[in-house]
Structure formats: C-alpha cells, structure tokens
C-alpha cells in the first residue's frame, strides 16, 4: 500500500514542473542576517506553492544549501544527519572527478557555486505565465532584500523554447511518476515516493536517512512525526534534495562536428545523415520520437512515446545505439544481472531522478549556424539549467552521472562517454553506432556541454521551513 502523499506540505516543484507557467527565474541568495531572514521565511512559508493544486498564474519554491541551513541555527548534531553529499557539497575535488567536472568544467571556473564564487545560502525559484508577470514578482522580492536580511548573488533567467533544448531536440519526456500521486504510468516508470521525498518508503522498502529531532526540540510542534515509528519528529519528511547545475551548450560546436563527420565523398554537407547521426547520439529524433521505435526517420506521432524497454526489441543497439544519451541516462531493462528481465528493471528503478530543468539564453538555428559565419546572438551564453530532485544524491543523481552517463565503459563499451553531455579525454571520445554487418564509429568527439555553475540544495517541506524559521 502506497503512502498517501502530504501534498499540502510538499513543495509544488517536486510534484509538477509547472509546464503551463512559461516564464521562470532562479534567484541565488546569500543570507546576511539570519534573524531577519527567519522572520521573512516564516511569512514566505504561507506563499510557497505546494503540491496540492496546480497553479494557474504563478508559483514560488525555495531550497537551501548546507551553508544556508546552518546559518538558520540548526544544531550541529542535527545538521550532521543530512547526507554526506549535501554537507560536503557538489564542488569537492573528489566529487568533481566523479561528476566529470574537470578542465573547462572545473568548479574553480564556475560562475556560481564554486570555491572562488560568492557563497550561496538559498535559491528562490519563481514561475509565472509570462516574462512580464515574472518581472513584477521578482521586483517585489528584490526591493525588500535588505529588510529581509538577504543579498542577491545572482539571478538566473530562463527561456521557453517550446519543449526543445538548444541542440534542437524535444527534452524532458521520460519522467518517473511518484507512487501515491494521482498520475499513473506503467510499472517501470512508477517509482516509490521515497526515492524523491524523504520520510516515505523507497525502492528498497526503507526510509532514507534524514535529520530527525527529539520531540522536545520542537516545542511548538511544527514538525511531523517520523513515519518509521522511532518516536522522533522528522525534519526531512516531504523534503527532497535538489541538484542544480548550469550546463552551457556549444551549439555551433555540436552541429559543426556532426556536419564534418557526415560529409559526402565530394565534400558537400549531408543534412539527412547529419540529422540521423545527431539523433543516434541523443537516442530520440528532434520531435522526441525514440529511435528504438523509428530508427530510420523522425515520426512526430511518437513524440511522447515512453512506454518501451530496450532489450526485447533491440538487444544489440541496431535501432538505438547502446551509448545514446537516453539509453544510458535511463537504461530501462538494458543492464545486468539479466538484461530484459524484471530484475534489471528493478535495479534501474533505484537510479531515477525527477528532472525540472529549463533552458536559458537566446536560441540559435542550427541551419543558420552552418551557413552563416557568426551572428551576435551566437556569442551569448546558452544552455540548460539542469535541476533534478532525489532523496539520495549518491545513489541517484551521482550514480546516473558517473556510472551511466559519463562512464566510457558503460554497458560493455570501451571509450564512449555520453556523446551529448559526456566528459571526454583530451584526444576526444568515441561514439559507436552498432550496425550490421559491423559497427560505425566516430572518434575524436569533443565536449559539447560544460558545467559553469552548480550546487546541492535541500528543498524542505512547508512545516520544516516553519520550524527552521522559528529557530
């Protein structure tokens, strides 16, 4: 029996991506006066959008870094109960190796979140129907920063590309559905709420570790009781860890590489092969149609197709290459101990994330990029604000990033990190396209996506925010 989700205590972004609210921005804040900030937070708690109703006009959510929660005055013994990844943060030297944040993606060079950048305590996430409404909301908060003990570190804007990302592909199609939420999906995509929310059972049938307090430490009774029955009150319940990474995309580099790699023998471009190879790298066509189902051409009727597994139809990667981005970020039934089995799917369900990213920066048209020299728009920064939610950063986001996406040896491969977002060694990576009678492959694959900012946040439940504000 699934736990009933306490939607009124869960921040709305965990439940939905607010697809109807086309405008969004993320404000990175430093807390200059914890005392004032807590007064502000106690009021803000009434304004935060919860998971209960789908907002029609605007939404607001909030999350804290470890430094931020610490500033609010939580006792060190309680702070130590947060996960090691959250406490030590995204930018430790080892984590940079693990995540592939090296060379141009090194945190030392990050615009925000790195050791050389200004400290960040929290992120305020605003959503509205259009940019005009959004800027009104933003202005209202911005003008009272000083009164509320806050300093703005950086405002991160987003852009609505109609569901596509900057390389031109439909993104965000495959999302897990929380067990106990009103939405339904096939069993492979229905995941225990505890994989995304603390205080609920996870895919192991267990509760993920989270900060817990003796009831005496919460005299006003803000916090819910520990549902595992320890008698403590639960600061983690209805909260989730938010991974936030700003990913810069080299759109010209991407299409130029593909153009060069797919030229006809006479040296002219071959747009059909170019698009096909790009789609093989992604694993879906620009419309979103999965190569598994339509390996030879795009088919917009299949744009949202997601009820499929790989192994039964395509064990050798002839339709969708083994190393394609979507086949490694969510391998479904592809992996050991027994590909194609329920056991393989069960293992996969322990490594899922809820993605909530949005694009930023002006779009560029690939066709134009390849014909025109340089445009002014092109000089601007563009990419994806990658946001994902999970209950165990190490087993979910970091595992997916290291063991699947960025692993050159993924699923028996040798030198094939993710062709789209992977970190390759200096001579470039390899992308193998399994085929009959024998594979094709690209070598010298450059890096198309780099990381320019990032942090691990905790997105508490509403009652936990009230408690933190009361400290």
């Amino acid at each position: 029996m699934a736990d009933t989700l306490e939607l009124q205590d869960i921040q709305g972004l965990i439940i939905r991506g607010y697809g109807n609210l086309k405008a969004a921005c993320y404000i990175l804040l430093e807390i200059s006066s914890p005392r004032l900030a807590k007064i502000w937070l106690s009021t803000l708690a009434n304004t935060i959008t919860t998971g209960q109703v789908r907002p029609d006009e605007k939404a607001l959510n909030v999350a804290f870094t470890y430094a931020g929660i610490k500033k609010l005055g939580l006792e060190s013994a309680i702070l130590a109960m947060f996960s090691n990844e959250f406490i030590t943060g995204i930018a430790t030297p080892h984590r940079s190796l693990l995540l592939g944040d090296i060379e141009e993606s090194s945190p030392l060079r990050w615009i925000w979140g790195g050791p050389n950048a200004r400290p960040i305590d929290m992120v305020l996430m605003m959503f509205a129907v259009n940019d005009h409404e959004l800027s009104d909301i933003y202005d209202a908060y911005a003008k009272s920063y000083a009164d509320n003990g806050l300093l703005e570190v950086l405002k991160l804007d987003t852009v609505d590309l109609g569901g596509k990302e900057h390389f031109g592909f439909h993104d965000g199609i495959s999302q897990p559905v929380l067990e106990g939420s009103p939405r339904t999906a096939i069993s492979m995509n229905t995941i225990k709420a505890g994989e995304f929310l603390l205080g609920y059972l996870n895919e192991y049938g267990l509760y993920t570790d989270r900060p817990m307090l003796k009831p005496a430490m919460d005299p006003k009774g803000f916090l819910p009781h520990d549902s595992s029955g320890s008698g403590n009150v639960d600061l983690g319940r209805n909260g989730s860890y938010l991974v936030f990474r700003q990913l810069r995309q080299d759109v010209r580099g991407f299409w130029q590489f593909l153009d060069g790699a797919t030229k006809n023998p006479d040296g002219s471009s071959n747009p059909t092969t170019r698009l096909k190879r790009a789609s093989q790298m992604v694993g879906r066509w620009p419309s979103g149609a999965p190569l598994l189902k339509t390996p030879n051409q795009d088919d917009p009727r299949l744009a949202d197709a997601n009820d499929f597994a790989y192994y039964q139809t395509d064990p050798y990667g002839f339709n969708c290459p083994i190393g394609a981005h979507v086949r490694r970020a969510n391998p479904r039934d592809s992996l050991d101990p027994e590909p194609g089995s329920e056991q393989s799917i069960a293992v996969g369900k322990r490594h899922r994330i809820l993605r909530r990213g949005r694009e930023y920066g002006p779009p560029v048209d690939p066709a134009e990029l390849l014909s025109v020299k340089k445009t002014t728009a092109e000089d601007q920064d563009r990419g994806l604000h990658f946001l994902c939610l999970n209950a165990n950063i190490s087993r979910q986001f970091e595992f997916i990033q290291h063991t699947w996406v960025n692993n050159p040896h993924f699923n028996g491969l040798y030198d094939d990190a993710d062709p789209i977002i992977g970190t390759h060694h200096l001579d470039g990576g390899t992308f193998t396209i399994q085929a009959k009678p024998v594979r094709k492959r690209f070598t010298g694959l450059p890096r198309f996506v780099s990381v320019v900012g990032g942090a691990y946040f905790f997105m508490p439940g509403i009652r936990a925010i009230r408690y933190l504000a009361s400290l």
Partner: protein
Amino acid sequence: MTHQVALTIIAEIKAGEVEDIKQLLKTMSDNAACNSIIPFGKFSNIHFARLFVLDESIDLSGRLIPPCLVFMSECDAPLDRLLNELVDIAGEGLDKVYSHCVDYLSLSEITRKRRLAYLRSKMVNAGAFYVNTVGRTVQQIHQEAQLRNAIQDFLDHSQQDWSGRSSLEVRAKIQAYIRSDRTLNWARNPPAQPGLFFKLKETLHLVGIPLLLLVLFPVLILALPVWLLLLRIHELSDAAPDIKPDDAHVEELAGLEDFGAQNQFSAVGYIKPGWFRRLTLLGILLAANYGTRHIFNKENLAGVKTIHFARWVVIDEQRRVIFASNYDGSLESYMDDFIDKVAWGLNAVFSNGVGYPKTNWLIFNGAKDEQAFKNYIRVHQIPTQVWYSAYEYLTALNIANNAKIRAGLSRNMSETEAEEWLRLL
C-alpha cells in the same frame, strides 16, 4: 596458461615510524608504475598491487595490536617468480620500506637471499581468493587489448563502406589484415591451456571436498540444528547500531578513488567475540574459496561482472579480517551491486564481523539494509596508500570481450556466427 595467485606480506611497523612509512608510501603513490621504490610497471606478471598501513588498534578485549604494513599483489603463478623479481628489481626499495618494520635486516647483513627469506617469513595465506577469470595472464590481457585496437583501427581507417557486405566477407577482411601484421602472429592461436598438474589439482579439490562432506554427512546433519540454534541466538543479540562514517574519513577515502575505470577497496574489521562466530567465519571462507575456485571462476561472481580480484585474509590470531578487492566503477556502484546481486554472499561472511547490519539466518537482510550497509562499508574501509593496476583502462567486461574476439578470430564460422563475432567490435 598459468593460474593466478595472491601475495600477502604483513610486517609490523617499528614503534613511532608509522608516519615515516606513510610519507614513503606517499612518494610511491604518485606513480605506482614507475616510482623509484618498487616500480610495479616493470613486473611482467603483476595484475594489481597495493601497500597500506593498518594503524595501531585496540582489540575487543582491550589488547593493543601494533601497526603493520600490508603489501598485496595479484599475480600470475608461480609466486616464487614474483618474490625473486621483487628482490632483483626492487631490492633497495624493499630495504627502504621494510627498514621501518620490525625484524628487518640491518644494513650490514642485507643479501639477496636474506631479503627473500624475510619476505617469505612475513607471508600470510588468503582465507578465500576470487579471480575474475582463472588462467588469464597479464600478458594475455595486454595482447588481446592490442588485438582489439588493431581491428578497430583497421575498420576506422579502411575507408570502406561495409554496408551490404556479408558478415563473413567483413570478417575475412579483418582476418587478412591481422595476418598481415607480424606483431599479431600470436593471435592466430588460442591462449595456452592450464598445465596438467594444475588441472589435476583442481579436479581433485573439486571432487574431494564434496566427498569429504559426504563422509562427514552424518555428523553434519546432527550438528546443523545446533549450529542454527546458536546462530539465531547470536543474531538476536549481537546486532550493531548503524553508525554514520565521519565526513573527514569519507573525504580521505574518496580522495583516493575514481581516477580511472577501476578502483581499489581495502577494509579491516574485528571478528565478533567467541568461538562460534570465529568458526562460522572460517567455515564460510572455506566454502567461499571452494565457490571461487570451482564455480565463480569465469567472469562472473554470482551476477557481478565488475570485480577483477578479491580476497579475505584472517589476521592477528583470528581476531581480525582484511578484505581487499579491485573493481570497476565507483564505490557507490560497487556497493549497489553487492546489495542488488550478492547480498546473501556478503552477509554469510561479513555478518560474523563486528558492526555489520543485522542478518537473519546468516544470509537474509544484512546488506539489504542499504544505508546501514553503506555506512558499515565506509566505516571499515581504510586508505590504500599505494595502488597499481597493470591495465587501468580496461574493465573486466572489456577484458572478457577482448578474449572472445581473440578466441573467435581463427575459428571456422557460419554467417550467423560471424555476425555474432562482429558484434563484439
């Protein structure tokens, strides 16, 4: 073909010299393959090697266990060749390392023979030893990787459009190319078969142990209920609380991980007090050793295909156990594999150790308590100060695939078989 052996040398460190030895190990760790102390890259039969310090410890009854230096290597048999090479190639380096250890020779008495005798005197046998694929030598692994690279380069540079060709045609082209390269002459023949003596010994062991069990069956069947009862009594009383590892300890360990495709893991722990747990553990290790010798000896440890080598070594008069392994991927993926695929096996061994999550009937629960298990792993893990791999860019799956490419290179094949063979590329 030669089989693989595990070298373990444990030497007590002189009082007050632990930091000196750690400093020395640090100078080696920057370049394990060609450092000036023990240049592991110069040894042709070493797969992996490591050196780590076991710090001073107080045992469960309050007795002090002095610090010691552990040197391990997984290598191709015979072990004697490795020992001889060690004193020949790294004699002076060994002096530098072991001069910090109790009983080592004074400068004036050092000879080649005495160094060798010292190493032999500090050798300890492994309680159980897992080899990913028994018989696959370092040389074979390197050669087969070279073969695969040659074929891939040929396909990349041949400028041919293969589409429309039959599998047999493509394969014939590859074979012709390999034949034209003299440095790949060896690839036409299958790898060497194990020696007759080794085969005989393994067969005797394979058959002998079950026969022995059959003989002892009447005794065992009577002992089983007693053992089960005692097991339950222990399980219900000796469970340990879940302790989260110290963040600084985790950072130190993590700082030594994830530089390449493979990682090392070293851990040490106390056996639970009393004869029951000690005997149970020794029995389980015997069973594990039988399993790794005869069942899990080809590319697969009960569903886990990412472990190159692993071993358990019982030390300190059966008070503690060292576990050491070489595996692919991150520690997180390694632990997840354990939990998802071989929790039963780990439970059987590790639940006899202090601090392990509660098991039921020896093999149930335990590692299935995900976070408690992961905490236990990190709490008991110790830094591997020096670590060497002879093929750090290859995963166990890559090595297995390369072996299949070589094995199929010269065989006669049907079109379907050729199609399958080409899928290995």
